[in-house]
């Protein structure tokens, strides 16, 4: 009975999560961010409309996968719980006869869904602007980056959502991870590809379109299982943590 009730509560809590995440200011900011690859695509198309490799590497990988995706994911992923813990509304979910995994599932689906929607839309429109005239090759590249965004959204949100249950500085730590670990260190140290969400995303993209080996270091057969293990492990840890959730300390 508890399982059935918990399962039924997931869409209810998911809708609340979506309404929380899609606050006006955050949505406008992220829509502006998502528009950057599209604007770059328009510029790229105007300057050089035939360079598939250049667009994929310079805009879709360097801007959409490396910057847009993790930034949107860290903002939504950490806000899914962070804001509720901060203002205390989390109690309205936790003081209910619902299993904690259901709360995690609702938050995860809400945050990953809205992240994926935004970044997929950005890649789809950018791809349509530059890659559609390139025929099948362009379509393959677009599909590859859509897959990368989907895998990346899922992984990043799972990790950042979990992080927000452990620290109030999840947003800061998330940004440091994105910029330092994935941005700088993974470029300098190819060996850490197995510990990079960006590499999981690009590795899955390899299944649809052959990426440059120095950009996508993992094969799809390695990247996909690693991504699944990461998401499952992160959500399991998040559930474990939420089962031990305590209100911030005090003496009253």
């Amino acid at each position, binding site marked *: *009975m*508890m399982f059935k*009730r918990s399962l*039924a*509560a997931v869409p*209810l*809590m998911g809708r*609340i999560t979506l*309404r*929380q995440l899609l606050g006006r200011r955050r949505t406008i900011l992220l829509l502006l961010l998502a528009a950057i690859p599209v604007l770059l695509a328009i510029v790229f198309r105007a300057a050089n409309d035939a360079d598939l490799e250049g667009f994929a590497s310079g805009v879709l990988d360097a801007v959409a996968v490396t910057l847009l995706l993790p930034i949107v994911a860290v903002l939504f992923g950490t806000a899914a719980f962070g804001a509720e813990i901060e*203002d*205390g*509304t989390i*109690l*309205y*979910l*936790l*003081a*209910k*006869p*619902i*299993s*904690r995994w259901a709360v995690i599932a609702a938050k995860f689906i809400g945050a990953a869904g809205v992240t994926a929607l935004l970044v997929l839309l950005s890649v789809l429109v950018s791809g349509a602007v530059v890659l559609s005239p390139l025929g099948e090759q362009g379509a393959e590249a677009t599909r590859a980056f859509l897959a990368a965004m989907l895998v990346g959204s899922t992984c990043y949100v799972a990790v950042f959502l979990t992080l927000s249950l452990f620290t109030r500085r999840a947003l800061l730590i998330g940004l440091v991870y994105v910029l330092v670990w994935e941005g700088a260190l993974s470029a300098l140290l190819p060996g850490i590809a197995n510990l990079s969400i960006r590499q999981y995303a690009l590795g899955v993209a390899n299944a649809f379109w052959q990426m440059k080996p120095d950009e996508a270091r993992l094969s799809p057969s390695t990247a996909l299982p690693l991504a699944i293990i990461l998401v499952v492990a992160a959500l399991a840890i998040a559930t474990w943590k939420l089962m*031990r*959730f*305590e*209100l911030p*300390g*005090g*003496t*009253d």
Partner: protein
Amino acid sequence: MTAQLPQNPGPGPDLQGPVGPAPAVAPAQSTSELEPTAAPAPQGAPAIELINAARWYGNVVAVNDLSFSLGAGVTGLLGPNGAGKTTLLHMLAGFLAPSAGTVHVLGRSPNRDPSVYRQIGLVPEREAVYPFLTGFEYVRFNARLQGMRDSDQAARDAILRVGLEDAMDRPIGTYSKGMRQRAKVAGALVHDPQVLLLDEPFNGMDPRQRLAMMELLGQMASAGRTILFSSHILEEVERVGNDILVMVAGRLAASGDYRAIRALMTDRPHTITIRSSDDRRLGWALMADPTVFGVELGTDNLTVKTAQLSAFRRLIAGASRTAGVRLFEVVSGDESLESVFDYLVRR
């Protein structure tokens, strides 16, 4: 709840103690509107029971060695700022695990068993409520998460009970503080919980709303619910019920009916104000009795200090008759909750 007052002055270990045998839990709520729920609390068990419960953060002890049990009825949780009231409520609500001891609500440990929330309603102190939901949507959301079959009707009923029907279709973000508070209460009682925990529930309400809310809590208590609410306004507690838990510096300073607690405060004399046909003559007559150790003659009354209130009540009748004095008014001036609270906090 039996009144308990520590014998030792000052907040020491002896201040704690079980309140005594609590009344049996009232019959379980009707679940006709609910899906089948988890097993109810064992028959006869107190709704709320703490045994040597403590909670500390590093070196800071928030609550220490609390033992009491509560059955049906309204109990006011009192204490100065920093006394540990909110920590206690959070422990009861399952959002703080005890560092030591046990905390049971309806026979279960609330921080390990979410199914107990089927029978608990919680009104936290913090004001935040989803601002984008209307009052009705918020209460219905709570009803749905509780698994209620007719969540729309349950939400409407709860909103009516708190008198928020005129604003139920407005977003909570536009509500006043008192309206938000009432929306929170409606959300907490929409599933008709057996135990209701409220942290400063009257905050932000105007006097009329406060009275209505007090009446509602009284009705729920009469229907067998266990209600524990914290407040720093003594008048509120006094109006809602007689039973109190007084916390001072993380410890339980006293528990039970505050009038009974006052009667146990033998180291503090009772002050009685008397108006009579001849205050001076009556004063002389009373001074002869060993239970009276202070008489003060005022311009139009007589103030008497005694350690034994019940003995004095017997004394005054006989003494006035013997002295040939007519009594107009006899008022025990420090029987109020404020007086009791002031005494307990200063000990």
